[in-house]
């Protein structure tokens, strides 16, 4: 057996903010430019990748986040075992990369997902994030890529005051400790 080691393995509660790492959701990076690509992804996943900037699409199990005009991040809502992640990757890889209409990269471990929940999550973000959340706040499904305290992140507005934040694994401990530090002063 190989032991699974996520970088944070923790969850913390502060007044009106809960911060937790969400383990083993599948994450796949998609890139592609033409209509074929969009159609193919739609066919494979039954979700059309959004073409509007800063938005997402999804169903009960998967989300597709817009990252750029030719780049998307897929992630699963729930914990998935390794085999299913591989299957998903293979399926997309074979129907997209193999036929030269785009690229498919497994980034399940590249990104760490941190969930922020509570009435004061935006206050926490405002301690280190230059992004204007005034509109974002009220748009369920909104996506942004920005910086939190100098660290690159992808933020997905999952629900009212319920955010999923993606940070590169090697940065995750640092961001985690920054978030916990900042939460103390909210």
């Amino acid at each position, binding site marked *: 057996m190989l032991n699974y080691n996520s970088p944070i393995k923790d969850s913390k509660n502060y007044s009106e903010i809960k911060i937790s790492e969400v383990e083993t959701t599948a994450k796949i990076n998609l890139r592609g430019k033409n209509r074929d690509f969009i159609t193919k992804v739609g066919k494979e996943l039954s979700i059309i990748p959004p073409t509007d900037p800063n938005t997402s699409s999804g169903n009960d199990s998967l989300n597709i986040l817009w*990252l*750029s005009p030719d780049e998307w991040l897929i992630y699963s809502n729930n914990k998935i075992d390794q085999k299913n992640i591989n299957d998903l990757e293979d399926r997309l890889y074979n129907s997209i990369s193999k036929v030269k209409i785009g690229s498919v990269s497994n980034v399940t471990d590249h990104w760490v997902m941190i969930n922020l929940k509570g009435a004061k999550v935006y206050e926490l973000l405002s301690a280190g994030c*230059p992004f204007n959340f005034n509109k974002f706040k009220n748009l369920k499904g909104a996506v942004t890529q920005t910086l939190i305290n100098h660290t690159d992140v992808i933020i997905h507005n999952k629900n009212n005051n319920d955010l999923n934040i993606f940070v590169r694994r090697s940065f995750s401990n640092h961001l985690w400790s920054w978030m916990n530090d900042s939460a103390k002063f909210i």
Partner: protein
Amino acid sequence: MFLINCPYCGERDQSEFSAGGEAHIVRPKQPTELSDDQWAEFLFMRKNIKGVQFERWNHAHGCRKWFNMIRDTSNDKIHAVYKMGEKPPTK
């Protein structure tokens, strides 16, 4: 801190971007055909305009797309942004 309108993502803080210098300096298609002087012109010589200049920016901490910007370097006012490969707006 500028407020930059990324042509893909919309208005964002300058800290999400990186500057890439003068725009529309096309990399020569046949460098070997160039004289040392001509190659130096491509490599190093810059207009360095005081006034309205065309330049490249990258939304490095956002969509990672490069785009062009028309900016007045004498007061930092951004007149327009446009995507790579597009013609500069004429207004």
